[in-house]
C-alpha cells in the first residue's frame, strides 16, 4: 500500500506539471533528446528489466528453498509457496 501511495504521488507530480519539465522554465518538448531512436532504447530497456525481474523472481525462489546451503538441492524444481 505504501509503495502504491508513493508511486501514485510521483505520477501525479509528473503528470500534473505537464507541459513543463521545469515549471515555467522549460517545456518537456524542449528538454527531450534530439538523438532519436528513443523507441529502440525504450524497448531494449524494457526487455532488460523484464529479464531482470524474471531472474530476481527465480533467485528469490531458489534462496527461499535453500536459504543457507544452496548446493544442497540442485535439481529440484518444484516450488512450494510458504
Amino acid at each position, binding site marked *: 500500500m505504501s509503495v502504491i501511495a508513493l508511486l501514485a504521488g510521483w505520477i501525479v507530480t509528473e503528470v500534473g506539471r505537464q507541459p513543463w519539465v521545469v515549471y515555467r522554465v522549460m517545456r518537456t518538448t524542449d528538454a527531450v*533528446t534530439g538523438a532519436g531512436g528513443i523507441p529502440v*532504447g525504450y524497448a*531494449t530497456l524494457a526487455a*532488460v528489466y523484464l529479464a*531482470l525481474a524474471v531472474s530476481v523472481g527465480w*533467485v528469490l525462489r531458489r534462496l527461499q528453498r535453500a536459504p543457507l546451503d544452496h548446493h544442497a538441492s540442485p*535439481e529440484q524444481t518444484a516450488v512450494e509457496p510458504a
Partner: protein
Amino acid sequence: MHLYDMPLAFALVGLALYVVLGGADFGAGFWQLVAGRGERAKEIRDHAHHSMAPVWEANHVWLIFVLTVVWTAYPAAFGSIASTLSIPLFIAGIGIVLRGGAYALRAGTATLGEQRRVDTVFAVSSVLTPFALGTAIGGIASGRVHVGNPGGSLTSSWLNPTSITIGLLAVASAAYMAAVFLSGDAERHGNRQLAERFRARALGAGVAAGAVAVAGIVVLRFDAHRLFAHLTQGAGLPPLVVSLLAGVATLALLWRRRYEPARYTAALAVASTIAGWALAQQPVFLRDLTVKQAAAGHDTQVAIIVAILGGGVILFPSLGLLFRLTLGGRLGQSSSTGVGPTGGGKGPLAPSARSARVTAASLLAGVGFLTVADAGWAHAIGVASFFSFLAFGYRAVLDGDILEPLAPTQDGRDVRR
C-alpha cells in the same frame, strides 16, 4: 585555476578513481571471460568473484559522481555529450545493469552450468561497458562532439579511430589493474599458485595496455591532431611521462613479486593518462565550447564545490574503512564460508574508533551547514549530516558497548552493508 575549472577538476579526480577502482572490477570480469574451462579456470573465476565481493558496485559511486558534477556544473556540455553519445552511454548503462544483476544472481546458481552462464553474462558486460565508456571519451577527446542536441553524428562520434583505440585501452587497462590487484589478493590469502597465474596475466596485460597506449598516440597524431600536439609538446607531456615511468615500474615490481607496491604504481600509471588528457585538452571542453563557456552560473559553481567538499568529509572516511577492511582481509572470507569473519571484534582496527570519527565529521558538517551557510540547500545538507551523525553515533556506541557477546557475526554483517 578559475572557479569554473574546479568542479571539472573534481570530476576528473572522480573519473581517475573510477578508471582505477571501477576498472579493476571490470577487469576481474574480463579474466572470468577468458578463464576457459576446467578446474583451474573455475578457481580463477571464483577468485575474481570473491575478491570483488566487499566493494562490488561501490565503485560506481564515482561514475555517478562524475555525471552529477558535470550535469550540474556544465549543463551545456552535458546535454551535448548525452545526446550525441547516447548510443555508447546507453550500452554502458545496460552493461552496468546486467553486470550487477548477474553478480547478484550468482548466489542462486546451483549447478556449475548455471554458474558458467551467469558468469558469462557478467564477463561480457564487464568488457562491453568499459569499451563503450572509452569510445565516448574518445568522441569527446577527438572533438567530435559539438554543442547541440545532438551536436554531432550519432555513429561516427563514437565509431572512429580515436574512440575505438580508447575503448580498447579502457578494456586493456582494466584487465591490467584487475590482474595486479588479484595477484596481490591471492598472495595475501596464501595462494601462491594462483598469485603466480595472475602475475603472468598482469605482466601480459601490462605490456598489452602499454602497446595500445603507444598505438593510441599514433592514432591521435592522425585523428586528433590538436590533442596529439598538446600531449607530446604541451601541458600533457609531464603526466604522460609519469604514466610511462609508473607503467614500467609496475612491470618491474611484478617481475620481482612485489605485489603491494605494484598496486599503487599501476593505479598511478592509469590515473596519469586521465591527467594527461585533461591537461592536453584544456581549455576546450567540446569542439566549439570552452570550459568557461560551458560552466553554469557562479552560485551553482560555489554550491557544488561546497557540496563536494562536504560529501568528501563523509565519503572518504567510509571508503577508507571499507578499503582497510578489504585489504586487511577481514571482508570477503564471509561470502565463501557463509559465516562472519573470524575474530571480528579483535582486529588491528577498532570499529568504534572509526565510527566515532565519522560521527564527529558528520556533526561538524551538520553544524557548519546549518549555521555558517545561509542557503536552503546548505541547510538540507546540514540536516542530512545530522542524520548521518545519529546513525554513526549509534554504531559507535553499539560497537563500543557490546563487543563481547555480539561481536563476530553482528559486526561482520553490519560492516558489509
